[in-house]
């Protein structure tokens, strides 16, 4: 099976693998997710009703209220956080969210991860080395 490799910058260290959940839309924390279930609830969001729990979340970045980190912090304590984060746009919301979620996170890629990764792909996130390894789903 062909593997695709992306290189980026470590945001939070660690190494995990899992199934990708990809969205081209930014994610709202406070008012945009149900942290107890790990589900997107924002109206007019393409992932509305879908769960990111245990997934490698691939998204452009964070938007909305300053409660972003707290919502995802609660998601971690509730066992509903994503497994890893892969994103493009750095903001204080997503940086702090990644830090308090305690999950590997990478940004600043050599290729746009939103164009390369598809929902369902198997993704290894080696944040310590800034490497993402993608195995296409069958």
């Amino acid at each position, binding site marked *: 099976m062909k593997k695709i490799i992306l290189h980026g910058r470590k945001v939070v260290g660690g190494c995990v693998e899992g199934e990708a959940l990809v969205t081209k839309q930014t994610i709202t924390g406070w008012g945009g997710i149900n942290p107890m279930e790990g589900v997107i609830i924002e109206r007019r969001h393409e992932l509305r009703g879908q769960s990111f729990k245990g997934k490698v979340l691939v998204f452009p970045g*964070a938007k909305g209220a300053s409660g972003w980190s707290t919502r995802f912090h*609660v998601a971690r304590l*509730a066992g509903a956080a994503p497994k890893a984060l892969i994103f493009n746009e750095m903001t204080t919301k997503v940086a702090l969210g990644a830090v*308090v979620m305690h999950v590997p*996170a990478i940004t600043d890629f050599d290729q746009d991860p939103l164009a390369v990764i598809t929902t369902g792909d198997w993704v290894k996130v080696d944040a310590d080395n800034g490497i993402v390894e993608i195995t296409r789903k069958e």
Partner: protein
Amino acid sequence: MKLTDDEKAMLDGKEGPARQRAMDLLVRYGEALGAERFIDTDNVCVAIGASGPFIRDLADKTGSFDAVFSEFALDSSDVVQIPEVKACTYHLIQGLDPDHWEIEGVDRSVYELHMKSIAFAKRIGVQLMNTCTPYLVGNVPVRGEHCAWMESSAVIYANSVLGARMNCEGRESGAAASLTGKIPYWGYHLDQNRLGTHLVEVEYDVESIMDWNLLGYYVGEMVQERVPVLHGIRRTPTLSRLKHCGAAAASSGGVEMYHIVGITPEARSLDEAFGGKKPQATLKFGKKERQMAYENLNSSARERAVDFVMLGCPHYSIEQVWDVCKMLKGRRVNSNTSLWIFTPRALKEIADQNGYTEIITNAGGILMTDTCPVLAHVMPKGTRVAATDSGKQAHYMPSILGLQTWFGTTQNCIEAAVSGQWKGELK
């Protein structure tokens, strides 16, 4: 990150375990951002209460706000005792109004927990302003002042209208800043990141509070977290208009800074707003875009019988309270509808003195303080359909409270409160 001696000392625990954890969190956060150093701050706005159900449970279980602060402010699972804050720190919105908690449908146990949380905040020296609009009640940062604020609607106001410097902080980073007086020197603290990225040609003559909401809502959705420059605004808007515009732009998108050419302090000219560079993109706000924003904000509403009219998101200025009083005077809110108006506690004092509270009460409405429906999940019992003059509240009410939500002018909202029916339309 490069640390100064006092930062190293805190990180090494020389100022106790709480500041050690605060500094540790700030270093992890600064490194995640890619910041090279910290900047000193003496102006912090945070929320440290236990307003959400999950945080409430933790407070209940441990019986201690030191535990809540350790976990949710310092990202520390072991409980440390929290000392007095180092930087001047102001409390943002809270989970209930202590004068109206029963009518807000809050349980006594939650109210009691809230009062403990207030006592904790007092103990560590937090100014209990309890509002999303600190700039309405005395915390008006000076141009260039480095701050660490939560509350996206306040951040965008202070950056754009006042020229203060801050990013949208979260609970953990804000609280850590209050204990240490430090925040990563990144993003909108730096000159180059404050320049405009997108040009917005405003072709519609934006005047009312509704129009400013629609402009903000449209632009936020289009530019996401970039820096829009509004060009073509012909009359200087009031504080209330910009308060709503920013709140809407920070809800549909992640805008933390914008410019209005000829009006806001870092945009005396188009050239200054862009720092001499070319815009990455140009968009326009005309009749069609205004209509689109209006339709998006009203897309959750179907039934015209309104149960709940919410005004004051962000918290109403005294000017807005007065405007509502003029519309309400001598009238009566429908028996099937509740009218709740939210303003900062300090302004309620003035409303009491000026007889505004009496006018609102006599009409059957309630002037509330300290909280907000979507933040605290408080609303009149049995509410299914709401109406508001706030783009931000209309954006969040359907997803957070599951309400059908109408958005329109303040006058539309007052008419809905009186008649019980939504008759607003875009004119």
